[in-house]
């Protein structure tokens, strides 16, 4: 130990990136851009949600994601603000696709940067749990029995409740 002062603040403004888009995203490029310019970052936790070929026991040939333009970005920004109030994070990125998607396509990306890993992991999982229950997106799947709207999961509500 020594008597140097505590860690300095981040030397650039923190970043909050929120985007809703039909195009795919490049995880590596998003991560590189998000953490650029801050040597205070020691931890980068991320999550990518991917379209599966099965759900609730049925084959899924693809899905279409609908959203509420305007409210979506607003809801995501509120969720990011709430994460910042709970953990000492530096940057947050939340990118969500809409429109038609097929199995193995990327759906959503959340990245959190922080000085330390515990806060990055917790904030990243929190952001996903809240996004799943509070951001206005709806999935419609194409199955052999036709199109069906995906039902909200009680497990997602339970996951979000953990953070109360």
């Amino acid at each position: 130990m020594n008597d140097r002062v505590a860690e300095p603040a981040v030397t650039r403004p923190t970043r909050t990136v929120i985007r809703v888009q039909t195009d795919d995203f490049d995880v590596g490029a998003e991560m590189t851009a998000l953490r650029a310019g801050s040597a205070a970052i020691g931890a980068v936790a991320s999550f990518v949600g991917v379209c599966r070929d099965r759900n609730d026991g049925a084959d899924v040939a693809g899905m279409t994601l609908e959203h509420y333009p305007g409210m979506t970005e607003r809801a995501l920004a509120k969720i990011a603000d709430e994460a910042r109030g709970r953990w000492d994070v530096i940057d947050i990125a939340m990118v969500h696709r809409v429109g038609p998607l097929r199995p193995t396509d990327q759906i959503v990306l959340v990245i959190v940067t922080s000085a330390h890993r515990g806060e990055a992991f917790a904030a990243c999982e929190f952001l996903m749990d809240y996004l799943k229950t509070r951001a206005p997106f709806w999935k419609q799947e194409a199955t052999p029995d036709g199109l069906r709207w995906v039902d909200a999961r009680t497990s997602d509500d339970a996951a979000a409740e953990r953070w109360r």
Partner: protein
Amino acid sequence: MLQLLYFARLRERFERDAERVALPAGVADVAGLTAWLRERGDPWVTELAPGRPVRVAVNQDMADAATPVADGDEVAFFPPVTGG
């Protein structure tokens, strides 16, 4: 006027994604607006029946039955969200 929006299953059942209506007489909150919509009969009375999993946002913030509704507001009705 109110701007009403419908998403996902409700958009399909109501066969519209939006409509403009005059603020109905006596309607002051989400509960009142929902009751007024139910008076249209099916599919409104079914989809918006008490206990159905319907979410409401007023001016793009999540709302509940007691949230005030006033002239000029944007009110959206949709199922529980399933993104991510």
